[in-house]
C-alpha cells in the first residue's frame, strides 16, 4: 500500500539552495528534495551522515505545488568587522584584548598583543561579506508519495520532531505547522486538489492573477535535472533527479470564487 504525506512550507522567509558556492548562497523557486529530506531527517533525529537519508530520498517521490511563488530577497550578510556597543572609537590601532568587541583578528602582533585587522582604505575592521538569497512571502505544498509504513513514520516525526525544523535556513521559522495531512491515491491529482492555508486563500482572493498553479513533479523520463537528491549531507554529496513542470487549476471553491470576481 502506498500513501501521501503533505508538508506545508510557509514562512515570511524561506530558502532552498540548489547551486550555491561559498559566499553566494542562492535559492531556487521551490523547495528542493535535499531541503525537504534534510528537514525530515532533522525531525527524525538523524545526523547528517546517517545512511537512512539517502534511503529516504530514494524511497519517496516528491511533487510541489507553488501556491504563492513569493519574491526573491537578497540579504547582505556580513561577518566580523564593524563595532558593537558604546566603545570608544579611537583612531589608530586597536588591539583584540581591549574593550573593543568584534572584528576579525588577523593583523600583526605588536609587543605581545594582536592588532585587529583594519582595512587600509576604510580604516574599519575587516569584514567577510556573503549574499544570501531567500524567497519572501512564499507558500508551497509539498507532497511525498511512498510506501505506507515510510509515510506513517514521517508523519509521526513531523508532528513530534527530535530537532526543531526550519525552512532551508535556521532563521526561516515556519508560520504554520509543517504537517498538512495524509492521503492516498495519485500524487499529482491529490496534490492539486488540496485546500490552501488561510494566508494563501487571502492572497488568492485578493489578487487578479492566474487561475492555475505551477507544479514541479518528479518524473524519470522528464528533461530537467535538479541536482538535489541527497546522498551524504555531511559531505554535501548529491545526485540528480528529473522533474517536469505542470500546471493545475486552483482548487474548486477558489477557482469558482475567482471566476466570479473576474466576471462580476
Amino acid at each position, binding site marked *: 500500500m502506498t500513501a501521501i504525506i503533505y508538508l506545508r512550507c510557509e514562512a515570511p522567509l524561506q530558502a532552498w539552495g540548489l547551486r550555491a558556492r561559498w559566499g553566494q548562497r542562492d535559492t531556487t523557486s521551490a523547495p528542493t528534495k535535499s531541503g525537504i529530506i534534510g528537514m525530515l531527517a532533522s525531525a527524525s533525529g538523524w545526523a547528517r551522515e546517517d545512511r537512512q537519508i539517502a534511503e529516504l530520498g530514494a524511497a519517496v517521490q516528491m511533487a510541489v505545488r507553488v501556491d504563492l511563488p513569493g519574491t526573491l530577497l537578497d540579504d547582505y550578510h556580513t561577518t566580523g568587522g564593524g563595532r*558593537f556597543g558604546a566603545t570608544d572609537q579611537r583612531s589608530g590601532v586597536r588591539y583584540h584584548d581591549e574593550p573593543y568587541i568584534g572584528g576579525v583578528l588577523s593583523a600583526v602582533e605588536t609587543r605581545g598583543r*594582536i592588532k585587529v585587522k583594519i582595512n587600509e582604505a576604510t580604516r574599519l575592521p575587516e569584514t567577510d561579506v556573503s549574499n544570501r538569497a531567500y524567497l519572501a512571502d512564499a507558500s508551497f505544498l509539498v507532497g511525498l508519495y511512498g510506501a505506507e509504513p515510510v509515510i506513517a513514520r514521517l508523519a509521526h516525526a513531523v508532528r513530534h520532531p527530535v530537532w526543531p525544523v526550519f525552512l532551508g535556513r535556521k532563521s526561516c521559522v515556519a508560520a504554520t505547522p509543517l504537517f498538512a495531512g495524509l492521503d492516498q491515491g495519485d500524487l499529482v491529482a491529490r496534490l492539486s486538489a488540496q485546500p490552501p492555508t488561510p494566508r494563501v486563500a487571502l492572497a488568492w482572493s485578493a489578487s487578479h492573477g492566474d487561475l492555475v498553479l505551477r507544479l514541479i513533479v518528479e518524473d524519470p523520463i522528464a528533461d530537467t535535472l535538479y541536482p538535489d537528491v541527497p546522498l551524504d549531507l555531511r559531505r554535501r554529496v548529491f545526485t540528480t533527479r528529473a522533474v517536469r513542470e505542470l500546471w493545475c487549476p486552483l482548487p474548486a471553491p477558489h477557482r469558482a470564487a475567482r471566476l466570479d470576481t473576474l466576471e462580476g
Partner: protein
Amino acid sequence: MLIALHLLQNHAPSNLNRDDNGDPKDCVFGGVRRARISSQSLKRSIRWSPTFRSYFADESQDLAQRTQLLPELVRQRINTHDLDTESSEAVVRAAMRIGTAEKAAPVGEMTRAPRKTKRSAESENNAPKRTAQLMFLSSSEIDELSAALVRIVQEDGISVLDGLTGDKISEKVGIFEPHAADIAMFGRMTTSSPFKNIEAAVQVAHAISTHAVEQEFDFYTAVDDISGESGAGFIGEVSFNSSVYYKYFSIDWTGLLSNLHGDAAIAAAAVRGLIHAAILAHPSGKQNSFAAHNPPDVAIVEVRRDRIALSYANAFVQPVRATPQQSLTAASADALARYIPQLNRLYDLHADRALLSTLPIDIADTRACASLGELIAWLPIERQEGR
C-alpha cells in the same frame, strides 16, 4: 521542550540594520513591503550584550570568539613553557595545520618561489600565522590544545610533530568538547577537525514589521564652521524608518542540554540569559545618530512539549494600520492576541504561556506577569530533566 519568545517592539526612527546601499533592510510580506532586521544582526546584538555576558561572568564559563589567529594565540600560551625557539616554532606550525591535512614542510625546503626583495621575505616570515578558517574557540579549548602540542614536542621531538598532518594532530590531542554556553546556544561550524561542529540550539527569525513601511530620508548638511562660507560644506542622505517589529526566538532545550553535556544548571542560566538579553538588546546600527533605544511593549514566552517551532508572523499578513483610537503597537498587539488562540486551536497545538506587556491585552490561558523578573522566574526549566 521548545521555549519560544515572541516580541512586539516599536523602534523610534532608526536604521538599526542596513543593506549594502545603507538603507534599512526590508522584505515583502503579505504582498507589502516591511521593515526587517536580519537574524544575524539580532543574534550578534544578543551574544555581545552586557546583559547576556553577565549571566556568564564566571571565569570558567568563557565565551567564544571568532578567530583565524589560533596559531598566534597558541604562541602566546607556550611562552610560559621552557621551549627553545625551534620547538616553539614547530608548535606554532602545528597549530597552523589544524583544519588541514598537510604536513609541515621539511626544514630547508623552498615551498615558494624566491621573493624579489629581502624586505618582503622578512615580512613574510614575520607575517602572523593563521588557520584555514574562522573558528569559534573558547580560551579553555586553546589552552588544552597548546598544552597538548607542547607535550608532543617535548616527549616526541620536533621532527615527529612536523610529520603529523593536521588530522593526525587532532587525533592525538583528542576531540575538543565545547565548554562555552554561547557555542552551545548559537552553534559552530567548522569544516574540519578537531573542533566538532555544534548544532545551534537557538533559532532567531528575521524580525519583520507588522505594518507596511515607508522608507524615509534625512537630507542633511554639514556646515563648515571655520571657513565662514554660508551654505553647506557637505550634503548627504541617511535613510531610516520607524517600525513595530515582530521578533521570534526559540530555544531547543533538549538540544541545548545535549550540547552542554547534560549540565542543566548552565543550560538554565543560558536560557534565562538569552530571554533577558533578547528583550533588552538590539542592534547598534546608526544609534549614535538615532538613539532608538526602545524595549519591547509585548513579550510572550511559550513552552511547548513538542518541538514545533512556529512563528506568529501570519498574524500580520494583512498589514496593521494605526487609527486615531489605536497606535500601531496596540493594533499589532491586538492582532497577535487574536491570532495566537486561533492558530493553536486550528492545528490542535498546546503550550504554556506567560506574558509581559505595557498594553492591556488578554490572551487565553496565558499568565500575565508584572515584571521581567517574574517572567524569567516563570520559565519551567529547573523542573525539566532533559526532555
